[in-house]
């Protein structure tokens, strides 16, 4: 695929236009005046564009990381909707790091209120725009925000370009622009012009106000569009970061201190340098890089280097870490984001004629384990500039980190962001790009591709933290009257932001309690506390972040309460939700009907239900399991979700299914453990996932009732949180054994 640079160069040649990179539209300046948020940026037309028109068609700049979630297709469809181009004419590129590409979707993630309350508020686009200054540097993909942030921005870019093209045609014809029509990449009047013919003139024109089209006229948005990357990904022609290919390039790998964050006391490169094909061994302070004439030789040689590692600053093993996490319960809660009614008084009533139950749950550390191992390519040129190729979720931060590492100006760094072979939150850190830049600095003039071995990828990840939760609840007359949840875990947000931007954000840590405090259960007495543990293991954002743990805690415990109440677990949840949030309750009705919930109960089978509202989207899941001679099988799964506006139902379905598989994989197999301060699991045989025979069959229902109009929930993450509790609840139904610790393969025997 063409890179940003080659396409702009080609456009320039084709058009010969005075504007660098051809005709570029969409560099709108966002004003602070709420009444009229759009004014064109007269001096910024060639900068930060979203739309490039050349003889091949239309290229949309989709400045979000494409990790498989289909965001580039969805963002392109939003532009195409307003621009009146045929889908075959649309190409998409990631574009360079730039502040114009801030992610407005993060505005939705800046509140400490439960999502289900925030999404019901009427959403004014002005409110989004007013918050822009806060997030100007957030060209970042994460939090399931990509489509939300692009919803207005990308349509405006398309509409603005369309109006400019019409104005150019109007000028040629000497008529008013509103007498002209646009269709299939052409402006139609008494004469017809292709967009390519008009592009150079249109680039100089400033359209007036634009009105976005009425949703009832949409042709692309809301439909399952053929993904723009599908043919390339089915023919081996997609160019991932790991496929970067430059003339004369060398191949390298890294081996960093397995005691994370520890230094390197010394190393002996001799055994590696003695191997044929090895060019160089480079010390990196806390590890080494080996450069060779192919990646395999580099990896063999890296293993041969003798290294004396220093210690890390965290406990020696998993057990000691869990002790540290448990100790957090004795500290004052960091947060109490929900405290409805009087939990303590209600629990103090005791069982009376009902029951008071308590349970403790534990979840392990988890790795991202995307299919494409971490990698980056860097090239320090003779003029002192640096070119870097790295699939990353935060391009501006990554570019700046490379510049800082080499002590050069950020303007001297060109960063390309290729598509990623999976991310799941694991490509936020700039580390791969920075290490590649440092390797390149040791061999000026030669491009070098640095590829992590799977072992390095797994043992040098930034992990979803382990956590412990303690829950108490009271039941009376078959109903839940109180629930008090407490989660103890180190804070991902504080850990990661301290590392990434040098400071931890103030205020309570939402991440450690999300998925627990914010659910639409109308319990009269509902409290949720977060206790932040003091543990310095490297942590990162893992698909659905805190929801991935708290949904397991809360949804397992709600199940325990239902059983203690002698109630059907699905009906029990419905009772608690119906008056609190109707769209969520509707999803439980949907999965009940789709799965034939009542009929699922039969000898040899188990069924489990779970729910989680995260990233603006409620999701209910039912899972069926079967006892077979070979072990327990996951047979069928049903998902009902309500993202509000579903911009591409085909992609939503794929994301929901994939996210549930991801969650089930972790629930069955996933655990990162430590011994001697080092991660024990080194490759897929130790960190396995669901595969073809172990994956259930899926049925997905997508509803569009949630929130006020224009509400767009995330779709990449919300399918993950209910997966683990749905499975644990199904296993209870099947075996009568309550799983209170993950992964489940330690306690249950699954069919292979």
């Amino acid at each position, binding site marked *: 695929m063409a890179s940003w640079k080659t396409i702009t160069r080609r456009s320039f040649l084709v058009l010969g236009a005075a504007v660098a990179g051809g005709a570029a539209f969409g560099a709108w300046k966002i004003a602070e005046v709420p009444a009229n948020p759009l004014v064109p940026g007269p001096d910024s037309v060639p900068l930060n564009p979203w739309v490039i028109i050349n003889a091949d068609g239309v290229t949309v700049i989709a400045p979000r990381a494409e990790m498989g979630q289909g965001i580039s297709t969805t963002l392109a469809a939003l532009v195409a909707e307003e621009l009146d181009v045929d889908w075959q004419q649309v190409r998409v590129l990631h574009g360079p790091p730039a502040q114009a590409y801030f992610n407005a979707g993060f505005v939705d993630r800046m509140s400490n209120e439960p999502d289900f309350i925030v999404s019901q508020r009427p959403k004014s686009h002005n409110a989004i725009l007013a918050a822009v200054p806060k997030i100007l540097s957030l060209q970042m993909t994460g939090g399931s925000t990509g489509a939300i942030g692009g919803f207005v921005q990308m349509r405006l870019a398309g509409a603005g370009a369309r109006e400019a093209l019409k104005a150019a045609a109007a000028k040629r014809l000497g008529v008013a622009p509103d007498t002209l029509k646009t269709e299939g990449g052409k402006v139609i009047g008494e004469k017809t012009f292709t967009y390519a013919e008009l592009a150079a003139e249109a680039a100089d024109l400033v359209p007036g106000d634009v009105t976005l089209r009425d949703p009832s006229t949409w042709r692309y948005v809301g439909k399952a569009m053929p993904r723009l990357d599908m043919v390339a990904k089915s*023919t081996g022609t*997609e160019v991932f970061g790991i496929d970067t290919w430059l003339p004369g390039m060398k191949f390298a790998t890294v081996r960093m201190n397995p005691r994370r964050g520890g230094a390197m006391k010394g190393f002996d490169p001799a055994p590696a340098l003695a191997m044929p094909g090895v060019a160089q061994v480079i010390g990196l302070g806390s590890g080494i890089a080996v450069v060779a004439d192919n990646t395999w030789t580099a990896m063999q040689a890296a293993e041969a280097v003798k290294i004396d590692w220093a210690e890390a600053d965290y406990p020696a093993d998993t057990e000691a870490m869990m002790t540290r996490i448990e100790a957090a319960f004795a500290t004052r809660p960091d947060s109490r984001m929900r405290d409805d009614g009087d939990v303590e008084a209600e629990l103090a009533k005791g069982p009376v004629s009902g029951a008071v139950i308590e349970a403790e749950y534990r979840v392990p550390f988890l790795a991202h384990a995307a299919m494409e191992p971490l990698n980056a390519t860097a090239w320090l040129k003779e003029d002192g500039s640096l070119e870097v190729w790295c699939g990353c979720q935060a391009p501006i931060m990554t570019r700046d980190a490379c510049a800082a590492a080499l002590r050069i100006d950020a303007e001297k760094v060109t960063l390309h962001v290729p598509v990623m072979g999976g991310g799941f939150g694991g490509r936020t850190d700039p580390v791969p790009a920075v290490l590649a830049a440092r390797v390149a600095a040791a061999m000026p003039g030669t491009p070098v591709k640095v590829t992590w071995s799977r072992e390095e990828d797994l043992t040098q990840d930034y992990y979803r933290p382990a956590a412990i939760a303690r829950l108490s609840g009271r039941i009376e007359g078959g109903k839940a009257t109180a629930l008090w949840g407490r989660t103890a875990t180190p804070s991902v947000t504080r850990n990661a932001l301290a590392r990434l931007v040098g400071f931890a954000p103030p205020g309570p840590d939402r991440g450690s309690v999300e998925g627990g405090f914010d659910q639409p259960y109308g319990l009269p007495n509902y409290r949720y506390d977060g206790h932040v543990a003091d543990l310095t293991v490297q942590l990162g954002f893992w698909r659905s972040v805190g929801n991935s743990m708290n949904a397991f805690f809360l949804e397992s415990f709600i199940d325990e309460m239902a059983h203690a109440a002698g109630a059907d677990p699905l009906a029990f949840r419905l009772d608690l939700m119906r008056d609190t949030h109707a769209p969520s309750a509707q999803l439980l009705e949907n999965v009940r009907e789709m799965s034939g919930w009542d009929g699922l109960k039969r000898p040899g089978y188990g069924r489990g239900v779970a729910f989680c509202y995260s990233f603006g989207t409620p999701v209910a899941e039912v899972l069926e399991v079967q006892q077979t001679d070979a072990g327990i099988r996951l047979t069928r799964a049903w998902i009902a979700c309500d993202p509000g506006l579903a911009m591409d139902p085909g992609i939503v379905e794929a994301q929901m299914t994939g996210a549930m598989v991801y969650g089930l994989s972790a629930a069955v197999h996933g655990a990162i453990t430590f011994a001697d301060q080092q991660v024990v699991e080194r490759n897929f045989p130790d960190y396995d996932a669901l595969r073809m025979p172990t994956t259930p069959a899926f049925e997905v229902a997508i509803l569009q009732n949630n929130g006020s109009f224009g509400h767009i929930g995330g779709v990449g993450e919300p399918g993950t949180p209910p997966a683990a509790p749905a499975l644990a609840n199904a296993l209870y139904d099947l075996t009568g054994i309550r799983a209170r610790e993950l992964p489940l393969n330690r306690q249950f025997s699954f069919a292979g």
Partner: protein
Amino acid sequence: MSITLQINGKPHEVDLPGEVPLLWALRDGLGMTGTKFGCGVAACGACTVLVDGEAVRSCQLPIGEVTGAITTIEGLGQPGNLAPIQAAWVRHQVAQCGYCQSGQIMQAAALLAANPEPTDQDIDAAMQGNLCRCGTYPRIRAAIHEAAAMMKAG
């Protein structure tokens, strides 16, 4: 010392020692990057190619030991000229990140060559070595069934 490999119907010379796995000869020696590296230990299937029609993990096969004709994803079909199995993949919109799909498609191609009408159980058995962290298995299964039907109809 250079070694000659028969890849996608043409001889290719690679200037690498015989112990280097085919995967890396393809990717780093020849710039054929459609075949992917996922684990290096035969645990993920991302590197799957065909050798004389059999699905093989190229990360485990030293080039000095290759005797047969190699087919990689580049040789199966191209963007303007899709093989039926690739057309089925596109129709079912299988790929998410797409990184595992070269290996999935090569594995499925070997299955269909040996077994033109695979059952779900046949698909389970043939595909279990191919990991997909994006969880595209249901669409892979559907695409294999459709490719089988297309190939049968000719």
